[in-house]
């Protein structure tokens, strides 16, 4: 039997239920698709929504006799807002009342629920709204047409005379009206129209206005269920002892002391390390710390971060670089008389994503031999395939039940699902007779790799006698996130396609091979390219005697959307008329990522500890049509905070011998509330297709702070994080 049926989890407070239903919303747990219901443990899989008699209208919309409309979200909710956004799109075209809308995670299906930008089911690249915008509206419009057809049949009136508004279907001439629920049975039996006409944007009722997030109430009263909260009475908790060097493997281990810990049930070697199974979490942790493991380092990375940077520096100066952009004649201009040049060597460290909820999964084998997996599935199809492969079970008999996830920032999206392979190995080695919850601790998370890789940028540039930038030469060295031999766009995006008109410009790249596993991190290549481009450009503008805003505008094409956000943010800060208060400086950056344009201006002073203190951030964003302005603003605020913490404090460092030096939040610092600047966000009105907002707030914050810092102190930031750069006497 399982727990977490929404009753045991809710605790004794009597108001909880009223609180939930009062807001009319429930997220909680993934609801099972109908066909699976018999194999599910009903007390584990139970949503508070009324589902009896609910009818599917298509893969995305289900309507119940009580008129509740449930949207099946093909995108995971980990804070960025798709549950509310996708539901808004359906409700708009369905002409539903917002109070009747519900949402739950769609099952894993790479065909039906594929991300139209990727071709497989997955959330990432800030695509949730962009790829769903028409698809979800069509799903809503189709369901609406079926309801209208049912009403026309029921009332014997022409469908064309029927109107729908705020969840009520009406026929004016006959005076008849109905809610959705009464027509569900008949409507679900209608043929879906082959074509539907979507609303003219001027008729939008819901799109473009603030809508309360559907997941807020359960996240405020503690009832929201994440993977770590799922439980079964006879469940084992498993943790794995991992090597402290990347590429190391188990040579031998002694589990005598571990097995002596009361509550420890078993210890097994798996390809990823040594798994300890226990009846409760504390026993599992205690058992793991009592293990003695000897590791084989013969294939491990034993170089330090410093040694890796040194090697990268040689690669940057070497032969065989890949060309990402090249026009004009860079060599001729850089060495020309009458130009002044500047150089920079920028170092970007490994970064862990460190989502609040570390990686975890619950795996259960059912009586019929099928497997249920509960996890924060960012690529559900990949997770399913990994479990099938490891456990030797047909993927058709595996269900991935996507849960709310405590953040991701890219960490949960992996081709081949290496994390899920570990969880499945743990489950398989246990014998699969009891449910197993596998969890990573924060130490596993910080030391577990799949980092934003180390990158080295070597830059040189020149201005002519008028101060115009005439040369830009950039070489980027680092691991290919996509494991490519040829040019990896994710290494150079944001640099090779920079918008500034510079006559002679070259961007080169080199892919390196390390046993340290690499992964995208919130905003992918833009995490480093935006910093390099925007901070080096600022130096060249200063060298040429140009104003940071005016100088950028002069280099940006007329009518470009970068100009729009840059001019807006300059107006917000009062750039032309004002200046930073005494002892403070302003810095600016503008950057496009994932087709969204963001400009930020920051106000910085020197903090007591000698590093930058960021007081204020003005942010202007152009993301096309806005579905929910409040969520767009929240993503900008959050992106700024996430990016700021990283550029001020964060690095994962391989020390002498190659072991990771950091282990938890005490030495892998997160931004805290006292370091969070006041953020003011403006959204540019636009009729362009909607683009994403989860990532684009991140890239400009680093260079904006570095630019303010250079103007305040004369020190250009070349080594990140800024704090370690200061400590190193840079």
């Amino acid at each position, binding site marked *: 039997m399982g727990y977490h049926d929404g009753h045991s989890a809710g605790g004794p407070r009597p108001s909880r239920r009223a609180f939930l239903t009062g807001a009319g919303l429930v997220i909680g747990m993934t609801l099972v698709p109908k066909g699976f219901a018999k194999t599910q443990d009903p007390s584990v899989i139970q949503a508070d929504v009324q589902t009896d008699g609910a009818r599917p209208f298509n893969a995305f919309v289900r309507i119940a006799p009580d008129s509740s409309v449930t949207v099946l979200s093909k995108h995971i909710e980990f804070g960025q807002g798709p549950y509310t956004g996708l539901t808004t799109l359906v409700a708009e075209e369905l002409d539903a009342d917002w109070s009747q809308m519900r949402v739950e995670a769609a099952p894993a299906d790479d065909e039906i629920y594929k991300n139209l930008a990727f071709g497989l089911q997955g959330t990432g690249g800030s695509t949730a709204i962009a790829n769903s915008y028409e698809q979800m509206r069509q799903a809503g419009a189709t369901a609406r047409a079926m309801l209208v057809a049912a009403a026309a049949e029921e009332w014997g009136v022409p469908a064309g005379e029927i109107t729908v508004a705020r969840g009520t279907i009406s026929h004016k001439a006959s005076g008849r009206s109905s809610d959705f629920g009464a027509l569900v049975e008949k409507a679900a039996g209608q043929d879906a129209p082959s074509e539907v006409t979507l609303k003219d944007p001027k008729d939008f009722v819901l799109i473009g206005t603030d809508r309360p997030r559907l997941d807020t109430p359960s996240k405020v009263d503690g009832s929201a269920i994440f993977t770590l909260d799922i439980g079964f009475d006879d469940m084992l908790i498993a943790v794995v002892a991992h090597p402290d060097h990347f590429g190391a493997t188990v040579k031998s281990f002694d589990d005598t002391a571990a097995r002596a810990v009361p509550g420890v049930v078993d210890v097994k070697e798996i390809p990823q390390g040594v798994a300890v199974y226990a009846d409760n979490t504390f026993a599992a942790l205690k058992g793991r710390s009592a293990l003695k493991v000897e590791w084989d380092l013969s294939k491990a990375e034993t170089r330090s971060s410093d040694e890796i940077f040194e090697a990268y520096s040689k690669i940057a100066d070497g032969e065989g670089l890949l060309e990402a952009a090249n026009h004009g004649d860079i060599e001729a201009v850089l060495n020309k008389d009458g130009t002044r040049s500047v150089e920079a060597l920028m170092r970007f460290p490994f970064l862990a994503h460190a989502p609040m909820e570390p990686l975890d999964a619950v795996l259960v084998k059912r009586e019929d031999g099928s497997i249920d997996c509960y996890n924060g599935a960012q690529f559900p199809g990949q997770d399913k395939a990994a479990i099938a492969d490891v456990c030797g079970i047909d993927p058709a008999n595996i269900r991935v039940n996507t849960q709310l996830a405590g*953040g991701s920032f890219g960490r949960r999206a992996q081709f081949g699902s290496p994390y899920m392979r570990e969880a499945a190995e743990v489950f398989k080695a246990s014998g699969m007779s009891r449910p197993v919850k596998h969890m990573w601790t*924060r130490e596993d998370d910080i030391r577990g790799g799949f980092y934003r890789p180390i990158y080295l940028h070597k830059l040189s540039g020149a201005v002519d006698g008028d101060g115009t930038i005439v040369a830009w030469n950039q070489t980027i060295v680092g691991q290919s996130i996509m494991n490519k031999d040829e040019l990896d766009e994710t290494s150079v995006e944001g640099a090779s396609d920079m918008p500034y008109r510079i006559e002679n410009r070259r961007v080169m790249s080199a892919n390196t091979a390390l046993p340290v596993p690499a992964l995208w991190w919130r905003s992918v290549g833009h995490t480093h390219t935006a910093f390099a481009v925007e901070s080096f450009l600022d130096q060249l503008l200063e060298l040429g005697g140009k104003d940071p805003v005016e100088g950028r505008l002069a280099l940006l094409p007329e009518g470009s959307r970068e100009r729009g956000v840059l001019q807006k943010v300059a107006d917000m800060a009062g750039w032309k008329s004002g200046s930073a208060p005494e002892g403070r400086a302003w810095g600016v950056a503008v950057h496009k990522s994932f087709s969204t344009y963001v400009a930020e201006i920051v106000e910085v002073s020197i903090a007591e500890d000698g590093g930058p203190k960021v007081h204020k951030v003005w942010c202007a964003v152009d993301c096309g049509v806005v579905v929910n302005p409040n969520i767009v603003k929240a993503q900008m605020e959050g992106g700024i905070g996430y990016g700021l913490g990283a550029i001020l404090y964060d690095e994962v460092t391989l020390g002498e011998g190659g072991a990771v030096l950091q282990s938890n939040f005490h030495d892998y610092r997160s931004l805290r509330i006292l370091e969070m600047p006041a953020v003011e966000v403006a959204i540019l009105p636009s009729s362009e297709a909607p683009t994403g907002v989860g990532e684009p707030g991140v890239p400009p914050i680093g260079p904006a702070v570095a630019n303010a810092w250079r103007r305040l102190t004369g020190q250009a930031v070349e080594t990140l994080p800024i704090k370690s750069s200061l400590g190193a006497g840079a």
Partner: protein
Amino acid sequence: MVSFTLNGEDRQFDGDPETPLLWVLRDAERLTGTKYGCGIAQCGACTVHVDGMTRRSCITPISTLEGSTVTTIEGVEGPEAEAVQAAWTAIDVPQCGYCQSGQIMSAVSLLQMNPKPSDEDIDGAMAGNICRCATYQRIRQAIHDAADKMEA
């Protein structure tokens, strides 16, 4: 055997006395609103109230709680809790939501001791609660809103 009061009810725990309160709550009591984030009192996701004060449950051995009164997100109540939760909901503070139980427990405690906190008071009281989504600006705002509502 350790006896304590949990959300107004008498409870006993007879497992390993070193077990941190966090795992007693989550594993034995199945109250999962209190979260694991770091295990070393750095992130505040596990914040609960013990005898009316905030406590990091991840480093609090259950053996030290004999006779204590423990309140979790599932049981927190009173005017401060109502005001904080309403303010949190009104401006959609949470993003991923995983840290928010801890944030709310710290915010309720702050208002119980200081009904009209300044920005500096808020930063001081909330500095131990990490939010990786960086919802901090809205946390500040919601605490001010809750204080205003209680005053009105």
